[in-house]
């Protein structure tokens, strides 16, 4: 009896402790965002001063305009490149994977098992390590210092193919049967019935693909050496590793490259969480 009550007492006491721990951790996790924004609006003197300022008394918005007017940084063009690259990669890679996943799940052709095995085999190859082989192929096709050279290898995601295949295997065949009665062929069934029902999957995997593409570093570094092909990450990295240290400018650069994704993250959070859960657990 007394054991029961102490246990209950413990449980009740644990609740506010848990809340407190969670609250503190939340502050720790969000602190870097606050620091980034604060630093981007300060001047060098304030940043290097040993006296702590919570928020700049005068906001130095000039840090942002200087970022875009500095001709050596190419920040404007780099942001445009990133937007174009991620904006093409996300929808195209997801659609290609969906179409291939449907074909592998539904269309009965001899040798489908072999094709599936060939797709699965490419899953074994770790992504970043093979930048040399990919560079060799993209280089021979003339893709060095071009945006398509950065985009092309990222359009073919075997893992997404498998996720879509699993999805379409579980798709109720009665609906397709009805479509067939209406005179649809395989392509029509995909285009008119399967694809429109895959909205959530397309959004989830598309959002994840956009994030990966926007934040990619090694491959754009390998292929896009010329400033005309820089992505936002490459421009920021060049700024960070350059000899002139301009602290407020660096933080302004970080804000500019991080903000688009944070905004997208907040808008599409539901799909992103779903995407992580599906892709992680089936993998």
């Amino acid at each position, binding site marked *: 009896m007394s054991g029961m009550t102490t246990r209950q007492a413990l449980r009740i006491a644990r609740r506010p402790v*848990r809340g407190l721990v*969670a609250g503190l951790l*939340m502050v720790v*996790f969000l602190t*870097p965002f606050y*620091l*980034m924004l604060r630093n981007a609006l300060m001047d060098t003197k304030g940043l*290097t*001063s*040993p006296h702590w300022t919570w928020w700049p008394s005068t906001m130095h918005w000039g840090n942002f305009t200087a970022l875009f007017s500095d001709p050596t940084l190419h920040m404007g063009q780099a942001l445009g490149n990133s937007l174009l690259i991620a904006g093409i990669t996300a929808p195209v890679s997801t659609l*290609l*994977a969906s*179409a*291939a996943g449907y*074909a592998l799940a539904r269309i*009965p*052709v001899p040798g489908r098992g072999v094709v599936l095995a*060939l*797709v699965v085999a490419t899953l*074994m*190859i*770790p*992504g*970043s*390590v*093979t*930048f*040399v*082989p990919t*560079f*060799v*192929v993209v280089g021979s096709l003339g893709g060095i210092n071009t945006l398509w050279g950065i985009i092309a*290898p990222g359009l*073919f995601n*075997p893992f997404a193919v498998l996720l879509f295949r699993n999805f379409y295997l579980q798709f109720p065949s009665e609906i397709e049967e009805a479509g067939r009665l209406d*005179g649809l*062929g395989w*392509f*029509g069934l995909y285009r008119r019935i399967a694809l429109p029902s895959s909205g959530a999957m397309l959004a989830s995997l598309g959002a994840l693909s956009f*994030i990966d593409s926007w*934040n990619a*570093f*090694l491959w754009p570094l390998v292929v896009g050496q010329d400033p005309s092909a820089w992505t936002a990450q490459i421009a*920021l*990295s060049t700024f*960070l*590793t350059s*000899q002139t240290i301009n*602290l407020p400018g660096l*933080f302004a650069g*970080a804000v500019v490259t*991080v903000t688009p*994704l*944070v905004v997208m*993250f907040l808008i599409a959070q539901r799909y992103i*969480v779903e995407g*992580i859960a599906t892709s*992680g*657990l089936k*993998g």
Partner: protein
Amino acid sequence: MSTASPTRPGGLPSPPGRPANKAAEARRPRADRRAWGAFALLAGPMLIGLGVFKYVAIGWSFLLSLSEARGTIALGHWVGLANYQTLLSAAAFRDSLLQILLFTLFIVPVTFAGSLGLALLVHRIRRGRAVLRTAFLIPAAVSYVAASLLWKMCLFNGLPSGIANMIGSWFGMSAVPWIQSTHPPLYWIVLVTMRLWLQVGFYMVLFLAGLQGIPRDVYEAAALDGATGLRLLRRITLPMLRNTSVAVLMLQFIAAFQAFDEFYNLFSSGLSGTGTAPVQTPLVYLYNTAMGDQDYGLGSAGAFVLTALIVGVTLIQGRITGFGRNEG
């Protein structure tokens, strides 16, 4: 183009009047030419892409790894296994393997425990759960480049105004150059905290999905038997999260072994490149070999050695955990 019309055997779209009886045939799907046409149309682009960027790339690169290829990606100057010998006898490469092993041994358990802990915490909190989850997950939107910038120039800045040094000064410690300190190697703290911040929310979401998959009545039955707190965690929660844990460990291992971004951005400088970095990962070594020295033969050999290592460890891990699954 009317995308919905079935294609004729010749592959051309059929005229609008005809689909009715064609559809009747298609009702019993056979491996006919129309199925082939649709298969090629839907899966073709993906298969061609994978063929070029995976199979051709790997094949070509394998041949390059057997050739002397400096400043060229042309084949022809065969040298057998010389590149592999050069690579494996290079102290810098072997050292980078050791460093990445250390890094993996550090980061994988820390991230695993951190993400599991966060998931258990968030799972049990009812009010404000969505806000908490967002707060822990949102660092996943930040790139390694931006995070490196924050960690190097703000949190672990060597100046007294750096955040870590400022907190240290409250306890009477003097300012430390975190990234440049090799004795003791303080840069590990910078590396581990950064990757933890960036990744822990991602794996937390995986664990949360796993936790939601555990049926409530399992807990209720155990509670009737008098199990509480830690015993519930050990006897029920952790075993039920087995598959998730295996997946998380594999993903973390593969990600850690390919670490590049933060090592490049924290340690390299415009003048010396990564030459003065206290620690090089295999990928940084490969980058310098293939992109810096333009030795594509040696770079290809490195890509194969690393791929073999990753595939090998993943297979072993899969086999061990696969056996475990049969037992229970």
